[in-house]
C-alpha cells in the first residue's frame, strides 16, 4: 500500500532536500536527485509486479458532505503501471545523462531540484485517482516546466519561452477546469472510477456530453501542445536539452494523451467530441511535419516531430483507438527521449551549437551517438522491425478503419516524418564537417553515452508485443496488409528522397517559393497570434480608455459626484441669509410642518 506513495514523494523529498540542504554542493544535489528517481523507478518496478489492489488506496482530503468529496489517492491499473514505468525509466536515464550534460552549469543544484519537482508532479498526474488531484499536479507540471525552460533565465529568449509555455498552458488548463466542473455538476463526483461507472447512465444532452469532453480535451490541447496551442513547444527548446528530452518529448507532453486515455469514457460518450479530437490531432500532425521540413535548429526539428507524433496519438484517441495511442506514447517516449538526448550529445560535442548546417560528418567522430540516433530515427520514421513501426501501424490501421481522409493525411505525415528525419540525419552525421567545431567533435563521456545505449535498446524492442504486451493492452491486430505496405512505402520513399536531396549539401537545397517560407516561419501562426493579441488589446484599450475618460471620469466622478455636491452647495447657500429671526422662523415652520405630518398625514 505504501509503495505508490514512495514513488510519488521520493522526488518531492529530493527537491526539498536540494533546496534546503545541498543547494551549495552541486555534485551532491545531482546525486540526491538521481537517487530519488532511482528509488521511484525501483518502487515502480515493484508495483508493476504486484497484483492490482482491490481496495482504493486513498484518504479524504476535502469533504463537503454529499456535494463534493475530494480524496487524495492513487490509481493502480495497467494504464498507470505502464505510464509509471515509462516516466521513471526515461526520467532516470535523463537524470543520469544530465549529470554529464549539466556538469559545468552554475545552476546545477537548481536544475536538479527542478527535475525532481517535475518528476513529483508528473508521477502525481499518472497516479491521480480523481480530476481535482490530477488538475493540481497538472498545474504543478506547468510550474516545473516553467522553471526548467527558464533555467538559463538570464537569456531573454529562455525567459520569454518559459512565460509563453506557462501562459499557453494556462489557456488550455482553464478549459480543463471548466470540463472538470461540468463533469462534477453532471455526475456529482470527481473520482475517475465513480464517474466512469455513472457517466453512461446519466442520459445527458448530447451537446453537454460533447462540451464536457471537449473542455477536458482543452487541457490536453495545452499540455500535449496540439493546434492551436502548439506554439509553446518549439520555443520550449530554449531549456537545457535533457529537459527537452524528459519534459517536452517523453512525459509532460504525453500527459495530455495519458489523461485522455484515463478519462476515455468521456470521449467515448460523444461522437462529436471524437470528431473534434481526431481532426485537431490530424491537423497538428500534418502541420507540424510540414514545419519540421524547413527548420535548421536540431532541437526544433525534433520539437516539431514531437508535435507531429503527439498529433498522431491524439487522432488515435479521437478515433477511439486509445490503446493504439497509449502504445504509440509508450514507444515514442523511448525513441524521442533518445533523439533528444542524442541531439544533446551532439550539441554538447559541438560546444552548444544547434544549427544543423554547421554540423556534418559526425558519424565517425561520435559513433555511439550516431548509431543510437540512427536507431531512434528509424524507430520514429517507422522502419519495419523497430518499435515505432508497430505503434504507428496500429494508429494507421485504426485510422484506415474509421476515417479514410484522416488515414491519408496520417500516411502523408508518415512520409514527411521520414523525410525531415533523414534530412536531419544526413546533414548532421553525413557529408562534410561544415564548421571547426564539427571537425573537432568527439564522443561524449560514459555517463551520457550509456543512457543513449539503454534507450536505443528500448527503442528497438519497445514495439514487440512480447515486450510491450507486458505493460499495455495492445490493440487488437486486424492485419491490414495494404496499410502495412503503404506505411513501409511512405517510410522508404521519404527516407530515400531526403537522403538523395540532402546528402553532401552545404546549405538548404530545397527552395520552393512561398511554401518554404511558410514552413520555415511555422505558418506565421506566432505572428498571427502576436497581431491578434496586439489588435484585440489595442481595441480593448481604446474602448476602456474611452469608458474611463468619459463615463467614469467625466460622467460619474466629475459630473455626478463633484457636480452634484457643488450644485447642492450652490442651492443651499441661499438659505444662509444671516438673519437670526429668519432662522428662528424656519425652525418654527419646520416644527409646525413636522407636527402637521405627525398628526394629519
Amino acid at each position, binding site marked *: 500500500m505504501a509503495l505508490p506513495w514512495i514513488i510519488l514523494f521520493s522526488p518531492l523529498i529530493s527537491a526539498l532536500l536540494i533546496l534546503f540542504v545541498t543547494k551549495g554542493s552541486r555534485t551532491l544535489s545531482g546525486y540526491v536527485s538521481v537517487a530519488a528517481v532511482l528509488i521511484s523507478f525501483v518502487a515502480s518496478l515493484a508495483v508493476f509486479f504486484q497484483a492490482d489492489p482491490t481496495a482504493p488506496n486513498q484518504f479524504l482530503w476535502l469533504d463537503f458532505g454529499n456535494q463534493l468529496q475530494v480524496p487524495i489517492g492513487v490509481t493502480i491499473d495497467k494504464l498507470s503501471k505502464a505510464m509509471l514505468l515509462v516516466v521513471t525509466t526515461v526520467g532516470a536515464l535523463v537524470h543520469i545523462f544530465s549529470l554529464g550534460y549539466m556538469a559545468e552549469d552554475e545552476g546545477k543544484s537548481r536544475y536538479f531540484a527542478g527535475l525532481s519537482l517535475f518528476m513529483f508532479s508528473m508521477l502525481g498526474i499518472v497516479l491521480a485517482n480523481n480530476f481535482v488531484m490530477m488538475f493540481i499536479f497538472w498545474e504543478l507540471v506547468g510550474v516545473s516546466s516553467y522553471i526548467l525552460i527558464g533555467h538559463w533565465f538570464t537569456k531573454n529568449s529562455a525567459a520569454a519561452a518559459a512565460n509563453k509555455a506557462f501562459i499557453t498552458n494556462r489557456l488550455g488548463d482553464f478549459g480543463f477546469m471548466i470540463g472538470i466542473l461540468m463533469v462534477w455538476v453532471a455526475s456529482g463526483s470527481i473520482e475517475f472510477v465513480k464517474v466512469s461507472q455513472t457517466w453512461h447512465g446519466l442520459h445527458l444532452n448530447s451537446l453537454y456530453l460533447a462540451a464536457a469532453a471537449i473542455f477536458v480535451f482543452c487541457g490536453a490541447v495545452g499540455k500535449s501542445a496540439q493546434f492551436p496551442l502548439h506554439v509553446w513547444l518549439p520555443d520550449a527548446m530554449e531549456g537545457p536539452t535533457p529537459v527537452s528530452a524528459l519534459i517536452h518529448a517523453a512525459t509532460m507532453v504525453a500527459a495530455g494523451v495519458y489523461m485522455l486515455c484515463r478519462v476515455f469514457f468521456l470521449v467515448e460518450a460523444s461522437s462529436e467530441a471524437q470528431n473534434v479530437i481526431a481532426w485537431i490531432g490530424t491537423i497538428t500532425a500534418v502541420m507540424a511535419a510540414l514545419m519540421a521540413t524547413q527548420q535548421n535548429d536540431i532541437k526544433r526539428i525534433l520539437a516539431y516531430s514531437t508535435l507531429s507524433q503527439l498529433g498522431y496519438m491524439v487522432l488515435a484517441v479521437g478515433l477511439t483507438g486509445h490503446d493504439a495511442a497509449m502504445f504509440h506514447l509508450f514507444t515514442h517516449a523511448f525513441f524521442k527521449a533518445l533523439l533528444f538526448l542524442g541531439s544533446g550529445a551532439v550539441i554538447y560535442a559541438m560546444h552548444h551549437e544547434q544549427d544543423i548546417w554547421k554540423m556534418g560528418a559526425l558519424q565517425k567522430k561520435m559513433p555511439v551517438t550516431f548509431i543510437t540516433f540512427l536507431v531512434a530515427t528509424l524507430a520514429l520514421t517507422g522502419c519495419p522491425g523497430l518499435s515505432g513501426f508497430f505503434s504507428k501501424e496500429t494508429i494507421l490501421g485504426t485510422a484506415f478503419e474509421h476515417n479514410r481522409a484522416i488515414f491519408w493525411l496520417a500516411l502523408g505525415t508518415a512520409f514527411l516524418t521520414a523525410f525531415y528525419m533523414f534530412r536531419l540525419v544526413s546533414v548532421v552525421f553525413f557529408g562534410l564537417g561544415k564548421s571547426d567545431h564539427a571537425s573537432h567533435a568527439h564522443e561524449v563521456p560514459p555517463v551520457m553515452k550509456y543512457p543513449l545505449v539503454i534507450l536505443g535498446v528500448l527503442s528497438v524492442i519497445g514495439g514487440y508485443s512480447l515486450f510491450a504486451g507486458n505493460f499495455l493492452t495492445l490493440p487488437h491486430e486486424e492485419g491490414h496488409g495494404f496499410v502495412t505496405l503503404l506505411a513501409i512505402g511512405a517510410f522508404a520513399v521519404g527516407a530515400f528522397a531526403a537522403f538523395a536531396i540532402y546528402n553532401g549539401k552545404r546549405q538548404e537545397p530545397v527552395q520552393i517559393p512561398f511554401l518554404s517560407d511558410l514552413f520555415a516561419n511555422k505558418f506565421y501562426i506566432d505572428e498571427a497570434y502576436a497581431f491578434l493579441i496586439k489588435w484585440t488589446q489595442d481595441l480593448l484599450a481604446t474602448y476602456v480608455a474611452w469608458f474611463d475618460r468619459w463615463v467614469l471620469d467625466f460622467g460619474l466622478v466629475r459630473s455626478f459626484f463633484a457636480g452634484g455636491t457643488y450644485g447642492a452647495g450652490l442651492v443651499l*447657500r*441661499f438659505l*444662509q*441669509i*444671516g*438673519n*437670526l*429671526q429668519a432662522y*428662528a*422662523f424656519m425652525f*418654527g415652520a419646520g416644527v409646525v410642518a413636522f407636527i402637521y405630518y405627525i398628526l394629519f398625514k
Partner: protein
Amino acid sequence: MGVTLNNYLLVSGLLFTIGFAGVLLRRNIIIIFMCLELMLNAANLSLVAFSRFHLGSNGLPDYNAQILVFFIITVAAAEVAVGLAVIVALYRARQTTHVEDINNLKF
C-alpha cells in the same frame, strides 16, 4: 362651571404664541430674550396644568410634570445668566442690540 384643562392650555398656547411672535418680530435682542422666557413659561404652565388634571390611581397629582417644571426653571436661570453675558459682550463689541445689524454669517 369650573376651570378646565382646556382653559389652562388655551392660556398656555396664547402665551407661547405671543412669545414666539415676539422672537420673530422684535428687533431688540433683549426683548427677544424675554419672549424666549415667555415661551418657556408657557410650556411650564401647560405642564403644571397636566399635572393637576392627570390624577393617579391614588388620587394624587402626577409629580413628574412638576419636577420637570423645576428642572426647566433651573436651566432657564442658568441660560439667562449665560445669555445676558453674551448680550453684554455683544453690545461691547458692536455697540448695538438690534438683530438685523448682526448678520455677518450670511453667504
